């Protein structure tokens, strides 16, 4: 009976693992085949990787596209973490009669779909002269991501931040911003790590807003580049797969580097 259960467990996990890994395998195999072979359904590795890579590099300014994506994702992630953690800290630590109402109001904003905000946001971005700039991509995304989940997540994590630490720091004469920067941030390291993974992925993969704001090829991020590769008259699926690998690697790397802290952060920051 027990062995049957083990078998069933492994069988189930095996199927799930296959379902999760298959798209990656397909992507990697695809990157080594010519477009014509991919269309014909060839599912074993080929020898066209170098050719696909050179097609991608000659038809797209890959370093510029990656630079743009990293710029938007890194600055966006740093700002989001800063804003969301400060807000989370503030909402939990300070006492005010209205704070729960304000917090509830902010949570309510989460229910407005982005599509409804897009047009007024575009007008606003245009009025302050940020169309076709990376700051124009980053700022609204910081606001959106902070409100969505991350601020909430930091507030929840801050519940576990011991008030004794803050009191002791105060007695030692630290100002509020010093407590935040030198006590709170190091203690909440794993919460930051977990949030980094989530926010970086969201920033890196963001598509709709950059599409609307960015107007020229030299500003494009990798998601936009991939979208235009896929709808060409004669899409080069091999080059597309190489581009997809390039787009996947940074988020994979971040996840592997921060994996331990991510799990810790999800379980609760302070032990």
């Amino acid at each position: 009976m027990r062995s049957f259960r083990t078998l069933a467990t492994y069988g189930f996990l095996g199927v799930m693992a296959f379902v999760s890994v298959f798209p990656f395998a397909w992507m990697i195999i695809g990157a080594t085949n010519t477009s014509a072979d991919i269309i014909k359904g060839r599912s074993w590795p080929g020898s066209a990787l170098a050719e696909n890579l050179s097609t991608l590099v000659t038809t797209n300014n890959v370093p510029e596209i990656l630079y743009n994506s990293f710029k938007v994702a890194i600055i966006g992630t740093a700002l989001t973490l800063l804003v969301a953690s400060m807000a989370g800290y503030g909402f939990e630590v300070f006492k005010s009669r209205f704070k729960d109402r304000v917090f509830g109001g902010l949570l309510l904003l989460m229910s407005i779909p982005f599509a409804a905000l897009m047009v007024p946001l575009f007008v606003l971005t245009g009025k302050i002269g940020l169309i076709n700039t990376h700051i124009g991509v980053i700022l609204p995304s910081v606001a959106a991501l902070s409100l969505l989940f991350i601020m909430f997540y930091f507030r929840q994590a801050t519940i576990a931040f011991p008030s004794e630490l803050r009191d002791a720091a105060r007695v030692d004469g630290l100002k509020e911003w010093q407590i935040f920067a030198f006590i709170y941030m190091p203690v909440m390291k794993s919460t930051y790590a977990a949030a980094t993974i989530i926010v970086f992925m969201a920033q890196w993969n963001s598509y709709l807003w950059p599409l609307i704001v960015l107007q020229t090829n030299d500003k494009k991020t990798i998601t936009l580049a991939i979208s235009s590769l896929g709808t060409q008259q004669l899409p080069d699926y091999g080059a597309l797969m190489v581009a997809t690998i390039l787009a996947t690697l940074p988020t994979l790397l971040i996840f592997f580097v921060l994996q331990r802290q991510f799990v810790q952060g999800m379980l609760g920051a302070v032990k």
Partner: protein
Amino acid sequence: MRLNSLKSTGSLGAMLTAGALSLAAGTASAETMLTVWSWDPNFNGDSMQRAMARYQAEHPDVSLVVADFGKDALEQKLQSQLASGSNQGLPDIVLIEDYAAQRFLLTFPQAFEPVGEHVDLSGMAPYKVALATVDGTAYSMPFDSGVTGVFYHRADLEAAGFAQDDLVGITWDRFIEIGQSVEAVTGKDFLVQPFNRTDLLRLMLQSAGTWYTTPDGAVSLGADPRFRKVVEEYIKVMTSGIVQDAAGWTEYVGAFTSHDVSGVATGAWITAAIKANADQAGEWAVAPIPRIDGIEGAVHASNVGGSSWYVMAEGPNTEVALDFLNDVWAGDSDFYADILADKGAVGSLLAARHTAAYDAPDPFFADQKIWADFADWLGVVPEVNFGVFTFEAEAAFLAYVPDVIRGDAALDDALETYERRLTQAIR
């Protein structure tokens, strides 16, 4: 952008000199940079660059920058920007797929420049001009045509004892008979169709001069008897056993390029995908599409896909953009010969038919003059108003009519539900 700024630095001296000269002459001449949004740097974007290279011979002070986005992405981007009412960052020229033309023109009537009032469009294929005409005013410069043909592996047809001419000038009923004979010998379906697309229906509808909606916006099913007749013919083709189902676009292209099926009936732009398989050179042929029997005016020519250029009324350089389109796109046959030879782009200028590029035999198609054929068919494609609701109509069609093809529903019931659903969507 970076290149352009380098270029402008390089020409600083020249500009200063020109500036001094123009001051002296009392006329100002500054460098103009046209911006274009399109969706394929190898195809429509590249064609635009080639057109500009020709224009620059006479207008060295005009340059071009193309931004490319995915096709659907571009439509979404344009729609959002126009809805915002802001003209900041709008391009001068934008490419829109023909099926979406009326939707944009009617939703944002002030946004587009009436190209037909400034540019002579009389040499273009009439159906391309008609599809972007509102109240008698033409708004587009037609680009690539999706003029259709039946592309097929010659050997399959010959194996069943037919010659190429047997596919010329026939009806769909005869085509089904031939397809069934070919399948009996080769074991291969003659055509292929992705289950989630309606390309074949589009082809048949336009060849009969009808569409999902009438020019005044009503559902064709009740208002235009030709629509129902076409659908009946379509179902006859789909249930005859000569059309293979494909799970999606790549499987569709894979089916005829790996010779799992004998051929495909669609727009001329598919030629590039077929020719990508160099090992099949000499094995292919193109026939005109069959005609729908029993509909007056139905022809052996139709259109699937295609796109046109639009000038933004509030773009930064509207006048220059119009002059550029007029100068190159409206009449330069050599330009069209160039993009045909190098890019496989079948333009919409009828006069280009008489260039050497169009008249050249194509070795990939066993020296058939396929481009001359396409150019001939281009001139007789029936004019159709795609209206605003093509995509809603196809969603409704795909939701109910495939049940009839599978034998799970009666045609009358399915069409009645289709009509109800579409009427609701249109409201």
